[in-house]
């Protein structure tokens, strides 16, 4: 069986991730007893960052089933392993049900009683409805993830085009269904943290951020494994060049969405909308968003313009890693200022919670990735590709 080096490396990753995750979980349990409110704030941030990584992989996988293309074949098993963490992520969502009162103004009766707006929204924004929408979201996406995996492994063993056709048939509606589901989910999970605020662009921004992070993660992983069998046989410099171009496209798209939302709200300058941004530039927060602007957009954008950087694998992987961590800061900036509206605040649990969820996520991801063949075979579109220059 090829890929022994890759598998033993993944073994190592899995062990360290489990240790980090276990330590994170222990710290979180301690933290939850010491400061329950802060625990839920940190946990929401850490959880949504890693969930976004899995969901971004889901979108990329469906895009690749629909479009094909050389860029995606070495990454297909990464995407498939990532979406198989969704059952685990559904399980890790459960603690949040106990924190609704700490997190969301609409779940505190005294706040709802005092606000006409929240009273009108109460039929939609209430505990049972929140739980039900989350259940539907996870049920549909877990089913999609399992089905995409099942057919993809059927495809490996047969020359019959039926599994390929079915993968495509599911990916088309899937890619339309996901933003629809995500709209309901992220309105509940992030947007409703502040009573007055709404933005129709917000969920699109979230989705693009997820795809960008997922792509950055997969580029780093592929760069790390590229010189080992079986990746060394198929992955070329041109492959990384194409992935770098795709990364640049998503960096620009993220900036376009993020700035578009800011420009519209800034131009309107209405109290209900602009307050969200005012909380997010108050005090030290404006330094956080300045750093995000630099490391989430300007630096990667200008570096990725260069052909040489896209073709130098170590440089490309570094840029991708920078984007990955900049997005971690971005998710923090989307959530935490709702609770600390006057200025920057960070708690040790803001590190422990992402470590806890992330450790478990990476362990599940590695376990899944190494248990299956590391490359896809029998995709009919793989055979028709023209020979690649190195």
């Amino acid at each position, binding site marked *: 069986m090829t890929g022994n080096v890759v598998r033993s490396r993944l073994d190592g990753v899995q062990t360290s991730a489990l240790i980090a995750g276990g330590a994170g979980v222990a710290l979180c349990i301690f933290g939850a007893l010491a400061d329950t409110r802060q625990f839920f704030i940190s946990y929401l941030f850490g959880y949504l960052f890693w969930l976004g990584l899995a969901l971004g992989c889901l979108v990329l996988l469906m895009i690749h089933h629909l479009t094909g293309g050389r860029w995606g074949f070495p990454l297909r098993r990464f995407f498939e392993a990532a979406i198989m963490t969704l059952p685990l992520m559904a399980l890790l969502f459960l603690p949040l049900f106990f924190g609704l009162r700490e997190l969301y103004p609409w779940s505190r009766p005294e706040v709802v009683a005092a606000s006409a707006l929240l009273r009108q929204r109460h039929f939609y924004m209430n505990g049972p409805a929140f739980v039900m929408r989350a259940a539907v979201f996870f049920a549909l996406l877990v089913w999609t993830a399992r089905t995409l995996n099942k057919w993809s492994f059927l495809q490996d063993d047969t020359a019959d085009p039926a599994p390929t056709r079915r993968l495509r048939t599911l990916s088309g509606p899937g890619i339309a269904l996901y933003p629809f589901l995500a709209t309901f989910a992220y309105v509940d999970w992030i947007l409703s943290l502040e009573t007055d605020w709404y933005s129709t662009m917000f969920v699109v921004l979230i989705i693009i951020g997820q795809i960008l992070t997922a792509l950055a993660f997969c580029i780093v992983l592929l760069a790390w494994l590229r010189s080992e069998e079986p990746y060394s046989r198929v992955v070329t410099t041109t492959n990384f060049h194409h992935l770098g171009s795709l990364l640049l496209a998503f960096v620009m798209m993220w900036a376009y969405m993020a*700035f578009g939302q800011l*420009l519209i709200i*800034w*131009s309107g300058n209405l109290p209900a909308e602009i307050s969200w941004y005012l909380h997010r530039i108050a005090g030290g927060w404006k330094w956080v968003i300045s750093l995000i602007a630099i490391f989430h957009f300007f630096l990667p954008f200008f570096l990725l*313009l260069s*052909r040489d950087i896209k073709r130098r694998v170590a440089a490309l992987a570094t840029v991708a890693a920078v984007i990955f961590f900049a997005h971690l800061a971005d998710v923090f900036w989307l959530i935490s200022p709702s609770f600390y509206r006057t200025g920057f605040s960070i708690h040790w649990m803001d590190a422990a919670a992402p470590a806890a969820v992330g450790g478990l996520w990476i362990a599940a991801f590695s376990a899944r990735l190494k248990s299956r063949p590391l490359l896809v075979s029998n995709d009919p579109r793989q055979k028709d590709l*023209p*020979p690649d*220059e190195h």
Partner: protein
Amino acid sequence: MRTGLYGLVAEFERHEDLLKAAREACRAGYRRMDAFAPFPVQGLPEALGRKRSRMPALFLAGGILGGTGAYFMEWYANVVSYPLNIGGRPFHSWPSFIPITFELTVLGAALAGFFSCLALNGLPRLHHPIFGVPGFERASVDRFFLCIETADPKFHPVGTRRFLETLHPFRIAEAQA
């Protein structure tokens, strides 16, 4: 108008032969040459010994010029030349300047790219000596051509023809300037 020989043209029936011929010619030291094919042949520019294209740098320069020009124009108009109170905002309101800056960055890059593409290709021009080569119209159908120009320092009317013969072309023709 100049008269005389412009270059020697070898005609091939398969793109692999053209690619091989271009590599051989490059190895033999020829640089002032060009290849013609009905479709983009992967690796042909490198086989001809072409260095990296200057186009990306020109696009970048056009984009930077367009973007900084746009931002300066907006800043000058709104802060220096004709300050106007719009909704109580500061005169130098950067968010409102970004869309125009973005658009003119794209416009600057596109115009720079379009015109430098024409200029670097030597366009517009009405005629090129290569069109006088018999059967050259098949370069856009099913034949592949390699032209070594007389302007090449290594060019020799007899020696170069002999060299081209070693590549086993379908035929060799002269392009008259």
